[in-house]
């Protein structure tokens, strides 16, 4: 190798290292907020966690003791209602968009879906407020409805995209066996895309679990356990919000950290549980 070639190699190597270093630095900068949030929540929150904290009613601001039991219960129920609305409608819409990519409806609905997924959550909250709360009063059904609408575009998009990447040759194989179109979709395409669909649902749940604005407008918040579908109800994000706004920083702020820890932990549990459930059926 002569001198000039060697030099070119050195410059190329240097550029290569420079590029990788820049990417790595960007990655590290991006990780700083995430890790510091997790660190703060865990160190400040975990010390609050005990049986009473998880099961007791919420005490008024400024009063020591109590727990976040109603908030955990409320969050679970409101997410459940949201799932009942968001998952079936979202999955079937996604199937339609993926299976009929050339129809006019798909063009319009796909566009509207993108708009809906960027809709500010407060607007969806107001929508649910006018539609349900203004008629029936504060209701966890309205909260579930608002969160369900928020989940809808996310699940639709995830379903559409995961079905679209199912190889055409699998669909063709099924059709060539004389399996009708709808049955091909249900028995071949959707199961093959299952992982992506479930991941989409999961992300949607995690996304709405921490929503505060629509819940403020629909379930308002409460200190007590749920007894009826038509009453103000507690939820973790609302409890975090209320406690953190309290002037009693030594009494209520730690409760907010505790509730934040529980919320993050719940999202983590949902993630892990679904990952385990959707593990590959066959070992390769």
């Amino acid at each position: 190798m002569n001198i000039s070639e060697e030099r070119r190699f050195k410059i190329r190597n240097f550029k290569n290292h420079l590029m990788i270093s820049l990417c790595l630095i960007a990655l590290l900068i991006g990780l700083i907020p995430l890790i510091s949030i997790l660190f703060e929540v865990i160190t400040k929150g975990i010390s609050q966690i005990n049986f009473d904290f998880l099961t007791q009613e919420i005490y008024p601001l400024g009063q020591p003791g109590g727990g976040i039991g109603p908030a955990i219960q409320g969050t679970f129920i409101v997410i459940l209602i949201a799932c009942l609305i968001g998952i079936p409608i979202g999955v079937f819409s996604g199937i339609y968009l993926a299976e009929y990519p050339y129809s006019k409806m798909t063009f319009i609905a796909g566009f509207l879906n993108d708009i809906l997924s960027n809709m500010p959550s407060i607007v969806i909250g107001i929508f649910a407020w006018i539609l349900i709360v203004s008629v029936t009063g504060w209701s966890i059904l309205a909260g579930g409805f608002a969160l369900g609408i928020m989940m809808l575009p996310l699940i639709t998009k995830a379903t559409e995209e995961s079905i679209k990447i199912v190889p055409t040759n699998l669909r063709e194989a099924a059709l060539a066996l004389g399996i009708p179109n709808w049955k091909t979709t249900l028995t071949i395409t959707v199961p093959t895309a299952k992982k992506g669909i479930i991941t989409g649902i999961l992300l949607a749940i995690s996304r709405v679990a921490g929503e505060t604005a629509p819940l403020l407008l629909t379930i308002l918040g409460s200190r007590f356990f749920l007894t009826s579908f038509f009453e103000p109800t507690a939820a973790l994000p609302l409890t975090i919000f209320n406690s953190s706004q309290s002037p009693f920083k030594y009494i209520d702020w730690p409760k907010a950290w505790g509730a934040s820890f529980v919320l993050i932990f719940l999202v983590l549990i949902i993630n892990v549980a679904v990952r385990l459930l959707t593990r590959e059926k066959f070992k390769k």
Partner: protein
Amino acid sequence: MNKIQVENLNVWFSNKHVLNDINLNIEKNKVTAIIGPSGCGKTTLIRSMNRMHDLLPDAKVIGSITMDNYNIYGNNNKNKSIDSVLVRRKIGMVFQKPNPFPTMSIFDNVIAGLKLKGISNKKDLKNLVQKYLKLTNLWDEVKEDLDKSGISLSGGQQQRLCIARALAVEPEVILMDEPCSALDPIATGKIENLINELKKEYTVVIVTHNMQQAARIADFTCFIYLGELIEFGKTTQIFENPQNQLTENYITGRFG
């Protein structure tokens, strides 16, 4: 005896005229090979025979293809349109790339099409799985692993699994679109032997790039070039005494 009759078949994809006035008779219980250079329309022709073009919105098929005097595109005597699902049950297909269903076990792959026929008796299904895996010479290789994933097999085994799957719905015609192009010579040999077995009970149409393969297994061969059927006849005649200059050039390797 004619099994499938293709008459004045024209196929367009959007504005592209892919097949031009194809006329072809496929004989019953024989192997018919379709050869020709890449992009000549071989695959388009074979896919029109079980209406796979229905899936593409910009594909247009004009002309008629009849099986046992029954028009598979639309109208029989009663002017009643025929369901493509029915056509595909009678005319099965094996694809270029092995495509077992990845979410199903080997067992379930074989019976994937059968379940539709309402066969749910476990013993019957077991016997059928055994029958078709034996027919495709796969049984001895997989009998211990029937509950493993279909994609855990080697490429050649996967292709034989796909053939078993296609045969299990009891079609009368098997279309094969370059079934060996992704396989090594040993796996190819196994599938060629299988095709020879199959013609006792089925009518086979095979698209192939490999002229030696056509010469080895086909009773009839048709040569397609630029969307036109150039020559069709007994394989021996096409290979030993082609009537058309283009056919001769292709077969002797002067182009394509």
